[in-house]
């Protein structure tokens, strides 16, 4: 689904922070992306969701070569990729329901057509009681789950999550991990960027380890 070939990345004229990355995210696969702080996890994730262009090498996303993509092609590809940011990026003036429904609203669908799906998903992530709450009144864990629900609402082919358990306690982290596994069973490829070894040790998933700008893969 996503393929990197000899990808390198540098910011401005600095040294390459990512070098010779060659790997593939396969359909329905589940993997952790890990490495010490500053290893370039977030930069790699940004390349995965088309927010950053590599300075060398080639990336193909959902069968399309990123170098040949035009601006107009991006929305349709982004709609197939769900993203959970470390800082959630929920819109504070919208309720949980409206935040989660945003990707569907953006697609021009009427509220009637998705209301029940959104309500079901919000209940599934355990936020049923916070349906009309504003993000400013929610805890870190609640915001995290709302952000995850927003990434999942349109059943993406790939889910990318940046430190999705960074703001929650261990029981909630386990619950979120189960949620991701369940999603993966329904057919979505999952990439979780984390440096929480406790979380990774809970399941024997593939690990993409970044260190000193290079990637080591442990299947």
């Amino acid at each position, binding site marked *: 689904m996503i393929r990197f070939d000899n990808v390198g990345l540098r910011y401005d004229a600095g040294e390459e922070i990512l070098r010779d990355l060659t790997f593939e995210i396969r359909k329905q696969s589940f993997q952790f992306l890990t490495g010490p702080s500053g290893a370039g996890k977030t930069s790699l994730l*940004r390349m995965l*969701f*088309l*927010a*950053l*262009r590599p300075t060398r090498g080639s990336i193909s996303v959902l069968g399309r070569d*990123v170098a040949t*993509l*035009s*601006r*107009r092609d*991006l*929305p*349709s590809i*982004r*709609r197939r990729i769900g*993203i959970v940011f470390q800082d959630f*990026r929920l*819109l504070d*003036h*919208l*309720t949980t329901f*409206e935040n989660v*429904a*945003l*990707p569907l*609203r*953006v*697609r*021009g669908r*009427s*509220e*009637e057509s998705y209301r029940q799906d959104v309500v079901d998903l919000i209940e599934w992530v355990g936020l049923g009681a916070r349906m009309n709450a504003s993000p400013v009144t929610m805890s870190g864990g609640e915001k995290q789950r709302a952000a995850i629900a*927003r990434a999942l609402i349109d059943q993406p082919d790939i889910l990318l999550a940046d430190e999705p358990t960074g703001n929650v306690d261990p029981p909630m982290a386990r619950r979120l991990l189960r949620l991701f596994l369940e999603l993966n069973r329904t057919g979505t490829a999952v990439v979780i960027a984390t440096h929480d070894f406790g979380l990774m040790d809970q399941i024997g998933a593939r690990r993409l380890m970044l260190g000193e700008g290079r990637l080591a893969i442990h299947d």
Partner: protein
Amino acid sequence: MQSTTDYSAFLQPAFARARDLLERRKTERQAPIVPSSSVSGRALVITVAIMTFLASLTVGAVTLVSETAAEWQNDISREITVQIIPREGLDMDAALASVEEVARRTSGVAAATRLTDAATSRLLEPWLGAELELTELPVPRLVVISIDGDDPPNFDALRTELQAAVPQAELDDHRAWVSRLVAMANAMILTGSGVLVLVLVATALTVVFATRGAMAGNRQIVEVLHFVGARSEFIAEQFQRHFLRIGLVGAMAGGGCAIGLFWGMGLWTASNQARPEADQISALFGSFAIGWVGYLGVGVLIFFVGFLTAFTSRFTVLKQLSLIDMLSPVEN
């Protein structure tokens, strides 16, 4: 029957679309994606109001000038005059009678009457005094010819015929005066249109800056919309709807004030006709009524400014989005 069917076939999709839009509006209970409080509204509403007020004044002034000029032109072209220059040995009475006769038998002439001795004396009184004896002075005499406005005569043929009958007769159809009047009115209309364009351009530029400000202030929302797969047009629409509202409210306020001013001035000149100030204005602009064309112009202007505001903001958002690196819309 055929035309009725075509008509309804043309209108049906439009009705269906309007109904859909209304229904969607009714069911749309969600908060706007770009909150209205984040778009700097009040200052822009006031700016748009002032600009629309100035533009409306220009529209009103242009209408007033063109209507007044048209009135003058009409009044003048309804009448022409024939002047008979006295020459040695000319029988003025016979010449006047002959001119009247030629004029009356010309088609398109409603009436031809000489200016009587008394009327001519009155006309010359300010210069030559009350005790004027016309027969003692070589004073030119006038014949006033009323024209049938629907079927005017051929002036050139009339002129030739008059000169054949009375060589001293000079037909004045006021063309020189009318053309100067028209030139002046056209110059005013052109100047007014120029001012109108400048005011509208200034309004559009203000909206460009306001839109850029709103986009910068809502950068996080634009980023989120991008990564959930929103198209640029969708993002532009979220800003555009606020600017349409701001534009319409501002334009209605400014245009409304201008309409109020025109109406008030019209009332004032109408009710103060005896006073010298009002007389002066009436002398220049008739009843100072801009007429339905003027009010319609201001009405059209209000909607135009509203849509100009919306369109400018949409264009600015799309332009700004296209300037962002296509693969780095989220962060730098």
